[in-house]
């Protein structure tokens, strides 16, 4: 043991940095943000990547026609300084900000958006987010190879303006444009380093990258850090108080937590569940908790007996005590779900209810005629302690209130995804985070044969309502139709919503103007450091 003691005394003697400023202190003085950013980004090509860490980086490097407004979930002018919407809601004309520049000094032009959207919609690129642009006239047909001529797609340039024609009036079209898949790439750079549809294009390398966002790419060391610094050519620099950002790929939440506590990062993007209560008590100003536009639910395979019986599904839902799950297991201020789409008091707030009623559950369960001696049903989830705890609680509730036996199966992420897609499951845990703040991003998923439906459920009336809603210009009327669809979903329960996600993370008090919004998006040019 002596050597340990000697080593410790030596280190204590030579380091002794307890009085020194932490990295966060030093970087704050220089106006540089240090962000814990989850996993290593798979890339920074906005038309290929699909994850949250990638989104956080692209938010610094590129800018779309509009910017997400972190205060009210709406939009602010971006590359487009203004826009005109036709009376029928089908045509959007974007007028470009003459000050919007690429990092090489060139102006961002409408033609660059035409190229970019052609790129993401080209089937050869294999872009997984191409369907975000399906609201544009003929975009889906072009993407599916049914038409080859891109000039037939509803995007064109007229008198230096970008004119977009939609399939249907889509009042949330501007919200869609805050998604990175709609952001532009610099055509000449893309062509130079691999061509429009090459997935192995090298245009995103540090020395090649040309962006149009508030920051420019400085360095990128894999699994270490990605650094950006203020783009002096950015049109909105007057309000930008951040000089640079360092994105640190830290996928281990305990490491991230330790680093935050030792003053190594301004933001730890997750908090270990078991530490939430302690943070709430000891460091409440640094713990941030707010609603998130996501639902945690159980997906039911309605192609299988007895799960094809609506009474059986209702019995399952009625015997789940959601309050208990939220308060005793999750403990992260999550809200119990009463609808599939997370409610928003200021916009879409459906009146559907999901009650906990074991008596009614038992009656419906009997009506379904299910024999509890049958082979037990399986609940499938991807390996995670959190999912396991919830599954165990629900297993217990179904056993207690219905006498139903279920077995729990945890598998690794890719196996879980493959089994869900192939329909090889009875009940599986699922979660969905909205891509833009509109109920459509949830409700559209349950339309017959949608890839993400995965339940086998189909309801002609539901499909019809969603179809009708798409042609409504009035948001009030559209929300009424959505609510009608939502009622069908909650009445038939191909999915059993459990709770609305909460974002919980640690944020240094030095970061100012941070907004708690349901998409958890804060464009960095609106932040400041103290």
């Amino acid at each position, binding site marked *: *043991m002596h*050597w340990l003691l000697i080593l*410790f005394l030596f*280190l*204590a003697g030579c*380091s*002794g*940095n*307890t009085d020194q400023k932490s990295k966060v202190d030093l970087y704050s003085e220089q106006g540089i943000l240090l962000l814990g950013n989850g996993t290593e980004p*798979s*890339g920074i*090509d906005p038309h*290929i990547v*699909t994850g949250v860490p990638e989104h956080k980086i692209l938010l610094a490097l590129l800018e779309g026609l509009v910017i997400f407004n972190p205060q009210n979930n709406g939009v602010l002018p971006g590359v487009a300084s203004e826009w005109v919407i036709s009376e029928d809601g089908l045509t959007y004309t974007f007028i470009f900000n003459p000050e919007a520049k690429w990092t090489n000094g060139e102006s961002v032009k409408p033609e660059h958006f035409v190229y970019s959207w052609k790129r993401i919609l080209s*089937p*050869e*690129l*294999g*872009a*997984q*987010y*191409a*369907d975000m642009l399906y609201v544009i006239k003929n975009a889906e047909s072009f*993407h*599916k*190879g049914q038409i080859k001529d891109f000039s037939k797609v509803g995007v064109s340039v007229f008198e230096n303006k970008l004119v977009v024609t939609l399939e249907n009036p889509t009042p949330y079209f501007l919200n869609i444009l805050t998604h990175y898949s709609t952001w532009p790439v610099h055509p000449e750079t893309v062509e130079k380093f*691999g061509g429009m549809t090459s*997935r*192995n*294009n*090298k245009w995103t*390398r540090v020395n090649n990258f040309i962006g149009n966002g508030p920051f420019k790419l400085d360095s990128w*060391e*894999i*699994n*270490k850090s990605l650094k950006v610094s203020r783009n002096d050519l950015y049109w909105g620099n007057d309000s930008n108080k951040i000089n640079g950002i360092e994105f*640190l790929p*830290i*996928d*281990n939440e*305990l*490491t991230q937590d*330790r*680093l935050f*506590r*030792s003053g*190594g990062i301004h933001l730890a993007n997750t908090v270990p569940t078991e530490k939430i209560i302690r943070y709430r008590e000891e460091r409440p100003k640094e713990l941030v908790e707010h609603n998130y536009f996501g639902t945690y639910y159980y997906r039911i395979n309605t192609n299988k007996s007895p799960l094809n019986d609506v009474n059986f599904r209702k019995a399952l839902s009625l015997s789940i005590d959601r309050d208990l799950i939220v308060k005793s297991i999750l403990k992260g201020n999550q809200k119990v779900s009463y609808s599939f789409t997370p409610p928003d008091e200021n916009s879409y707030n459906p009146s559907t209810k999901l009650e906990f009623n074991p008596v009614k559950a038992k009656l419906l369960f009997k009506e379904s005629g299910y024999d509890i001696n049958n082979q037990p049903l399986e609940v499938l989830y991807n390996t995670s302690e959190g999912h396991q705890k919830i599954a165990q609680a629900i297993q217990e509730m179904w056993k207690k209130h219905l006498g139903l036996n279920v077995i729990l199966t945890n598998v*690794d*992420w*890719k*196996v*879980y*995804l*493959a*089994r869900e*897609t192939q329909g090889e499951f009875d009940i599986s845990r699922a*979660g969905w985070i909205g891509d833009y703040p509109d109920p459509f991003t949830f409700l559209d998923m349950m339309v017959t044969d949608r*890839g*993400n439906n*995965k339940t086998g459920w189909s309801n002609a009336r539901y499909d019809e309502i969603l179809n009708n809603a798409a042609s409504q210009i009035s948001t009030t009327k559209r929300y009424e139709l959505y609510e009608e669809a939502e009622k069908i979903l909650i009445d038939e329960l191909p999915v059993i919503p459990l709770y609305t996600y909460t974002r919980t993370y640690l944020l240094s008090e030095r970061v100012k103007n941070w907004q708690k919004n349901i998409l958890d998006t804060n464009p960095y040019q609106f932040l400041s450091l103290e």
Partner: protein
Amino acid sequence: MIQLILKRLFTYIPVLLVVVIITFLMIHAAPGGPFDAERVASPEIIEKLNEAYNLDKPIHVQIYNYLFNAIQGDFGPSFKYPGRTVTELIMSGLPTTIELAIYSILFAIFLGVISGLVASLNPGKILDIVPMSISLLGICIPSIILGPVLVLIFGIWYEVLPVYGWGDNPGDKILPTITLGTAYAAIFARLTRGGMLEILGQDYIRTARAKGLSEIRIVIVHALRGGILPVISFLGPAIAGLLAGSFVVETIFQINGVGRFYVQAAFNRDYTMILGTSILFTFMTLTFVLISDIMASFLNPTLRDSGGLE
């Protein structure tokens, strides 16, 4: 000797070939594919992606193509990181992983050999029992536990060492090195003790003592050379084990080494990356075992004479 080394190098080919083929078959048999995602892509997109990465061809054609390209040094593009090649990703992390392994092995040899030496010179006494008990503990505590405990003590409670990174802050290499090296230090201590006890009982040591040589001279000049042989023989597998096992330490301390790719690739079904890292670790294991065999035969002429390399 050179002939024997060449012979051993020649065996690399069938070993690597078998590793590639088995890995290829295993990853394709595993459920789930590289393009499975929570947001399901349409069948048309999956088809395009399979085409882009040559996954639409029969498996034997894929293996042939892979081997053909691999021989020329092209290990393909990563599926998970579009725009980057496997070679490029491996090379971005390999120097760090090797550096971590070297520091850890030096730490393990230094601590292990000294403890083993002290223990062997005091058999049955407190200086034997204490280091050997601690070494047993060192073998038993996995790095996944030891790392966070060290971080808690030195990084958070006393704030004397950084808890993150590699080469970014002074002293940030200390905790990862200790975390990775401790288990091997413990093994080396036990191997040294065993080896030394055996040698110290040999006739030539008794002769040396009878001649009146000092104990230090006997131990350092005469006994250590033979006593340390088990350590040398174990060095190869130890370094290979350190490299392959470095992913835990790399994850705990967020070190940008190649070990993390090894594990992440399997979870991501990044086929080319799995193959690339498997080939790399197989190659390194074979090479380090060969090197430790060569070192052992230099230290022990009987091994050299009897063709111990084989």
